[in-house]
């Protein structure tokens, strides 16, 4: 199909979709009104389980089984990307590029920001049931923080900072821990992912039942998953043979 034909077909289809969207939006409840039946139910359920962050409560308590699926999608995507980007035989191993020249100021920022970012990431994960954040957000912060080592120093430092085989194992353990907490729910109260630990006092670090536990499990999985994922891309970009690298960079 030529470009022109394809664009004409798209314009017709887009117009049709646009009309359908307008019709659908007209059937929605008004914007900004006070009628939110799901909100009322979710807030009441979250408060009953003493979780101040209702979004975390929805994700890790009320709809926890969806989050298990979401987490499995993440795991599957990391495995898929790692399989697609695995080194092939024709690919030559190259030594990773050296540090190059990094400004002392940049290095200094790295020394300060690396521990700080890891601390913030841990805080976001652990306080996921109290303040904005949670396992997914905190996990991404943790993984990004580790890669500051690459930005402000060199690849070798990043490799020392995150032993890849540990990360792979930790990623799987995080996913397993989520399922195990779910199974504990079956054993204790007969329902998958039902709350199994004391609810605690509203607003305490140890409260909201299994929500913080699931947050930590997801945080570990996401942090390590992102590290493994980015490692696959790093391998492609940095460890290819010189001929391949030139071809890649010319695009």
């Amino acid at each position, binding site marked *: 199909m030529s470009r022109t034909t394809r664009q004409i077909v*798209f314009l017709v289809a887009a117009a049709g979709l646009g009309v359908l969207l307008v019709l659908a*939006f007209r059937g929605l409840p008004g914007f*900004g009104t006070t009628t939110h039946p799901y909100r009322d139910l979710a*807030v009441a359920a979250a408060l009953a389980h003493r979780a101040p*962050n209702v979004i975390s409560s929805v994700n890790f308590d009320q709809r926890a089984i969806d989050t298990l699926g979401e987490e499995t999608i993440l795991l599957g995507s990391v495995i898929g990307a790692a399989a*697609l980007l695995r080194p092939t035989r024709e690919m030559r191993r190259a030594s990773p590029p050296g540090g190059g020249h990094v400004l002392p100021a940049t290095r200094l920022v790295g020394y300060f920001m690396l521990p700080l970012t890891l601390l913030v990431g841990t805080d976001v994960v652990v306080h996921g049931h109290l303040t904005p954040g949670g396992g997914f957000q905190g996990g991404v912060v943790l993984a990004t923080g580790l890669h500051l080592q690459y930005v402000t120093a060199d690849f070798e430092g990043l490799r020392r900072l995150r032993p890849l085989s540990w990360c792979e194992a930790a990623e799987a353990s995080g996913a397993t821990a989520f399922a195990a907490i779910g199974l504990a729910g079956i054993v204790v109260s007969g329902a998958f992912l039902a709350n199994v630990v004391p609810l605690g006092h509203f607003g305490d670090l140890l409260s909201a039942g299994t929500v913080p536990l699931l947050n930590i499990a997801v945080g570990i999985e996401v942090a390590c998953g992102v590290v493994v994922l980015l490692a696959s891309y790093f391998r492609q970009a940095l460890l290819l043979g010189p001929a391949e690298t030139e071809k890649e960079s010319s695009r």
Partner: protein
Amino acid sequence: MSIYAFIVAGWLVLAGLAGVVRSRDLVHVVVCLSIAQAGTYVLLLGIGYQHGGTAPIFGPTTPTSAAVVDPVVQAMTLTDIVVSATITALLLAIVIQISKRHDTVDPDQLRALRG
């Protein structure tokens, strides 16, 4: 105006799809797909919005009696973002493989099947 959020949501979806159709680079296609998905975030958050509502996170500054926006759609938006990120990662990996096998990332030049 109360329909802005819905207009923006529909516009993002259509603009993203237009980008996918007109694209000359597969990385651009992946980015356009992310933009189309961003329309769903705006739609979800728009549905859950309440005038004067605050974030559904209670604490010292937000008493449990305060009016809050819908947390259910916000949780769904989070799921949406995670799925979008995983799809982007997987698609970019596929683009790298296509680039290696076919020496091009222009969708118009990808005609023949190659093993």
